[in-house]
């Protein structure tokens, strides 16, 4: 039983188009720790990237992930067997993040510049430092984008989310999503070039 769920989940987490995983939901409904843990393991990275991209703060992203998983656990009995779990999780996560941003106004820019290299110890300093630098630059750039553009870009680029789903998440048309995405990438191009030319900023 556990094995069946595991195998299914693996396949599911590697394939971008999601299918309703009724067995997994059934296992979640029964509050099987194994099943829930596997969802967490499979989805944590994607949700974290989404939350970090939108919120810009590692601590907030971590909190958001926990929040989303707790909500999943609570909602599992009410989800239908055909619920596409990944899409459902992204939606819950995005809603949470946008609510957080709304609550957070006025925006604290300082948080977006928070350096990950200061917070996480790096076992391989060279690689980690470069990675951290990129992360910081990227988060800074993302922080410059209006939140809807940012959400669209993060969902599309880091989450590999189909435009149609993004439109549903943001309750707007696909045309609007396309516009947001184009503006986001054009602006990022400029911001990232600036950051590369002036790495100390």
């Amino acid at each position, binding site marked *: 039983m556990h094995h069946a769920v595991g195998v299914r989940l693996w396949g599911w987490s590697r394939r971008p188009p999601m299918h309703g995983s009724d067995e997994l939901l059934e296992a979640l409904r029964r509050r099987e720790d194994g099943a829930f843990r596997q969802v967490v393991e499979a989805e944590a990275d994607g949700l974290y990237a989404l939350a970090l991209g939108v919120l810009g703060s590692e601590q907030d992203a*971590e909190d958001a992930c926990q929040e989303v998983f707790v909500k999943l*656990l609570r909602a599992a009995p009410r989800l239908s067997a055909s619920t596409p779990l990944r899409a459902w999780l992204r939606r819950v996560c995005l809603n949470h993040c946008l609510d957080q941003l709304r609550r957070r106004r006025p925006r604290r820019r300082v948080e977006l510049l928070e350096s990950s290299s200061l917070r996480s110890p790096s076992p391989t300093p060279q690689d980690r430092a470069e990675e951290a630098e*990129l992360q910081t630059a990227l988060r800074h750039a993302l922080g410059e984008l209006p939140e809807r553009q940012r959400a669209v870009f993060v969902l599309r680029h880091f989450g590999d989310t189909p435009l149609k789903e993004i439109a549903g998440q943001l309750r707007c048309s696909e045309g609007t999503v*396309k516009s947001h995405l184009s503006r986001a990438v054009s602006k990022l191009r400029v911001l990232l070039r600036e950051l590369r030319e002036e790495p100390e900023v």
Partner: protein
Amino acid sequence: MSDCDRTRDLVGPYLFADIQGEELTFVESHLAGCPACRTEFAAVESALALVPQDALKPSDETRARIVAAVSRLTARSSRSAPRWLLRWGLAAAALVLGTLVGYQLPRGPSLPTDTAAPAVVSAVSASDARPVREAAGSHGEQAPEEGGLPSADGGGEANEMIDGRAGAAPPQTGPPEQRSGPDLRPTRSLVASAPALRAPRPLGIDDVQVAEAVRIEDMR
């Protein structure tokens, strides 16, 4: 909206391969004839190439913290006891039940044997059970077996002892050989030395259910 504006408004979906048909044809034919838009598209593409898809992935430490925190929350919120606890709890209950049934038998004449059968058979050896039931009629309720020691006495000997002891002083004051009496104790009991558990108690319907439950559990 000029053609350039319209094309640049599709740069994102174009690079992410999210447009087809008429839109795609439009963008491609415009790019073919517009060096400025081509340059812009190329610049955006190379900027995006700098941003790996996993650029925002959590560090191992962060990831572990998330998994651990969520696991803690599930452990706290799970309402039912773990399965092993239920299983062993039922097993312990059945053991106690078996013991009690073993004691109940001699002095509970009204106890239907078939009700107690499954538990008794497992808890009391056959050689002990037979003489005990014979003695019950004459013996009645008044002879508690406090202090008795497990004995390997044969069935016939045990019967004599019961008859000789009927109406005599309480067993704990009597001589050791009388006190030992017939071995009414379930031979495999783990709780025989706990006095509270040895008090006679009617076999409730719940007990039967527990016994049934543990049976079913064990079958799995």
